């Protein structure tokens, strides 16, 4: 059980607000780690720091032993870091299938010369990517949505598409930002199944979530964050029954 993602002494302030205060955290392959904490605790900011969207003031992030500091978001994604967004961020002018295809690991459409002059290799990769996308959609119970667009889908299924898209690049680390907010019914069960399967395949999963039941059902472990600090790490059961943390969470 080695660490896939290592966050080491990361600090970040926006003006006077410290969103990461000496955060040190490791995510292991095959495990699901839940990030719990009230709004403004710095959970999403931590994801943004890890993904390279926000630059840390100090500290180091490593993925499979490789230092990511200074890399751009797309470079980190190529190394096997994948994420979803609280507000989904699907491409509105693409079908669900195309949303997934554009996230494939070997995507020929990134290179104009390849598209124009290496038609054979482009078509082969395009076929592989379409097949893979359909396969992932099937696993997420989304087969029927392949040709639909974002606006055709209820919110819960849009969230599932977001997770499906994040799985297109065979990431070794998957960060899910509030996957359950607004998700209910069938999509809820599917989401759980999909995340469990990803972990079972060896992916290190990090989940920011306010839905405590989901966290408790799914996560092997949790950390409690408050104003940019990690206050505790342990079983989810232990964290949510800790009266000190509950008080911070509900702000009594």
């Amino acid at each position, binding site marked *: 059980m080695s660490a896939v993602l290592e966050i080491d002494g990361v600090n970040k302030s926006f003006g006077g607000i410290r969103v990461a205060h000496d955060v040190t955290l490791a995510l292991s392959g095959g495990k699901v780690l839940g990030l719990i904490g009230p709004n403004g605790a710095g959970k999403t900011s931590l994801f943004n720091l890890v*993904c390279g*969207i926000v630059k840390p003031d100090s500290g180091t992030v490593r993925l499979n032993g490789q230092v990511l500091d200074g890399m*751009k*978001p*797309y470079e980190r*994604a*190529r190394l096997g870091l*994948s*994420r979803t*967004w609280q507000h989904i*961020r*699907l*491409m*509105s*002018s*693409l*079908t669900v299938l*195309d*949303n997934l*295809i*554009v*996230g494939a*690991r070997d*995507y*020929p*459409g*990134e*290179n*104009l010369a390849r*598209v*124009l002059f290496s038609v054979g290799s*482009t078509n082969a*990769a*395009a076929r592989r990517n379409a097949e893979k996308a359909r396969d992932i959609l099937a696993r997420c119970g989304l087969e029927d949505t392949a*040709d639909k*667009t974002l606006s055709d889908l209820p919110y819960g299924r849009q969230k599932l598409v977001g997770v499906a*898209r994040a799985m*297109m*690049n065979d990431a070794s680390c998957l960060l899910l930002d509030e996957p359950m907010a607004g998700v209910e019914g069938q999509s809820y069960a599917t989401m759980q199944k999909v995340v469990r399967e990803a972990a079972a395949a060896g992916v290190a999963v990090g989940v920011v979530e306010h839905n405590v039941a989901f966290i408790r059902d799914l996560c092997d472990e949790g950390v409690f964050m408050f104003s940019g600090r990690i206050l505790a790490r342990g079983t989810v059961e232990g964290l949510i029954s800790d009266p000190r943390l509950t008080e911070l969470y509900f702000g009594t």
Partner: protein
Amino acid sequence: MEYLYIVMISLGIYVILASSFNFVIGEAGLISIAHPAFFATGAYVSAIAALRYGVPIPLAMLLAVVVTFLVSVIISLPALRVSGDYLMIASIGFQLGLIELLKNLAITGGAGGLSGIPSFLVPQIGNGGYAAVVWACAIAVVLVLRYITRSDYGRAMSAMRDDELAFASLGRNPMWVKLWVIGLASAIAGFAGALYAHFFRFMEPDQFDVLQSAALLTMVVVGGMRTSLGPVVGAVLLQILPQAITFLNLPPSVLGPLQGILFTGLVLGFMFFRPRGIVRMDPVWKGALQDAPASGGTHVRGA
């Protein structure tokens, strides 16, 4: 007949310009107004190389394409590193700055422009032949850009336009996509400039001023942004209308303002009554492979 050929040549050149401009602002969603400046770059590079240095014309035209490509990439690179808005500012700066430069350098002939540019092919094949060459180039440009737009590259362009941050977080490099889009479209505009220079054999800086940006934008918007045929329709319409009103025998004092009123009126009219232009785009991206299956039957993108 010769007049008709000249109109056709001018039309073909504007088809090339409008189509490549649509590639940048429509398909990739990059806000740039400097397309006429890249048109000018190509025209001046080819003309100066042939006129002043005796470079064989085909080579001068190739040089124009390469130089325009490089200039556009160098201008855009620093702006694209920051954010989308800076591209517009950089493009305004380049558009205005280049025209001033052309007006004040000796090598470009200053405000008086360049005349006596060697002609290309016309002595051999005549105006009609040249019109055919220009239209063959225009059709090739439209088809190549349509191919790219419907390929995997087009899917990436649409994705980047929709949400750049999500696009980058999927492992795609948005800057690389933007640079190639601008480089390719500008190189095409540079080529159009070379075609222009060696036919009309005279040019002055004011022909490439910012009003041309407005004209190209009007062509793309009125014709239909994000379609392959829209810019063609827009270019033809907006080139023929001004030509047509010159036949009305109006005094120049009326004719001058009338052109501006016509363009503005068209844009306003379309904004109210047909905001997506004459050829309507499909809001959903469709690849070349997706037209055939049953699901693709309802939309045929930019047909």
